[in-house]
């Protein structure tokens, strides 16, 4: 398992770990803002997985300048998907935070157990 081999799988393991950290935060923490932070980490891990797919060894960013038709490029498709996914993540986050602000105004707290007791 030489160095390159190790890095080959290292990306996926980091993806797995960060995904699990995000999911754990969402499930275990009861503070609503902390849940949203966990959610954004959870989504970022998925972006990392997609982008590790597109790397071609010795390839550069898929921008084919005039003189560079010849050499190897990385795969542009996952990048397009992730551009969309990042903005989806931010939109969901913005909506989530708006709801958290409204919850704080009507319940006075953003801890899930206190909210459940209030009703």
């Amino acid at each position, binding site marked *: 398992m030489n160095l390159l081999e190790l890095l080959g799988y290292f990306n996926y393991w980091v993806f797995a770990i960060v995904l699990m950290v995000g999911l754990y935060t969402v499930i275990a923490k009861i503070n609503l803002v902390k849940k949203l932070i966990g959610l954004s980490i959870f*989504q970022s891990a998925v972006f990392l997985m997609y982008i590790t*797919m597109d790397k071609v060894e010795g390839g550069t960013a898929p921008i084919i300048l005039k003189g560079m038709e010849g050499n190897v490029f990385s795969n542009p498709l996952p990048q397009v*998907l992730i551009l*969309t996914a990042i903005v989806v993540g931010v939109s969901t986050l913005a909506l989530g935070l708006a709801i958290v602000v409204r919850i704080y105004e*009507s319940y006075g707290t953003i801890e899930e157990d206190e909210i*459940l007791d209030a*009703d």
Partner: protein
Amino acid sequence: MDLTPHLPALQVIVPMLSAPLIVLLKPRGLAWAGATAVALLSFAVALNMAIAISDGAHYRYDMGGWAAPYGIELSVGAFSSLILLIVTGAAATALLAGRASIDSQIEPDRQPMFYAAWLLALAGLAGIAVSADAFNIFVFMEISSLASYVLIAGGPNRRALPAVFKYLVMGTIGATFYLIGVGLVYMMTGTLNLADMEARVGAVDDINPILVAAGFITIGLALKAAVFPLHVWLPNAYTHSPHMVTVFLAACATKVAIYVLIRFDFFVFQSNFDWHGSHFSSFLMPLGLLGILVASAVAMFEGHIKRLLAMSSVAQIGYIILGASFVTQDGLTASAAHLFNHALAKGGLFLAIAALACHYDDLRLDRLAGAARSMPWTSAALAICGFSLVGVPGTAGFISKWLLIDAALDQGPFAWLLVLIILASSLMALAYVWRIVETLYKKPAVVQPSSAGEAPLELLLITWLIALANIGFGLFPQFPLNLASAAAELLMGHAL
């Protein structure tokens, strides 16, 4: 300038592009009128396509003019046109009937944005039904989810907010699981187009990532479709959202997720791995059965009428999943038919409750006692839709109950257990529907309605239209049944 080849695209563009314009319609009532017109227009498009498809047509549309695997492709077959009918029909009827109820629950200055979110939800769901590209389904799933979070957050009392927050968190996790699944399949096949994926999945030699992808996609979509153990967000979300939103979402939101689950699993995975069929059924059948039993049991003892019906929705989703998990032609026809019939029955029920809510502020069951005396027509419609939910003969529910039991009978050794569970749960359904009907009719009035008289006219008319449609499709179910059996043929025949 013949628009028929553009119908699949128009189905999504019409509601989506009109949403921003609706936000500008500030004067009173204009936003509602615009939104209803657009919803009816998209229902007309869906109907047009459904009629063409029921006698054999199949719509295929390349977005941006690029050929299939490279550009995004839309394809509308029998199954997707059935879903489109349900989605656009539910949106149009809820909007047509909902003017008074929405006016009473949403402040006038926020209404244009509410109706824009409504159209976005409609566009999102239609986009999912129409699209044949895995990532495109994710994008439109996000649009419809975001829009439904906004709709539910419009609920009058403060409990809507924690409910919608839980829905947001679980919905986003579900969508991200789906994204991981699509990513894994893309990693192993290199394509995002469903038909192309189906062709290339067979050629993949190490299938571990594909199995894990199937797992992720099934869990993610089960979360969005509120299949039994992952349904915790549904009761609160439907109970505390505005009444018209419950009508719209209860009729179609979870069904689109089930549609994607069935379509993805039958086309991409089962066509290439024949043993996957048994995986799919061995995973989903117990969930379906458990869902049916537990949800019906909980619904029997539920106090709040909307939460009761929300739990019954979870049970009915269990039926649909059960039908699909038979992995046979009859099973799929039964589950497709039940998609349609349940939308009718549950839509009618929630419409009747919205009518009740016009005069009764507190929707707890014992507070609604004796409502039939002051609102006889609404209670009659509620009773009819309730019986359709139970599956009393002569109503739409009976047809799907019949098909489901018929499909369950040839499930080999434990066929009897399946039939027993289906019957037990329809008896439980009978129990909680009868509990509602009896409190409405027989119990003496505990609380006087806040204002006397029947529900507003257009709400009452639409509720009765749906109630009669329940009976109509119960006696003459040819139209949805042809679509359902064509869809089942499509799914089992693995043609996209």
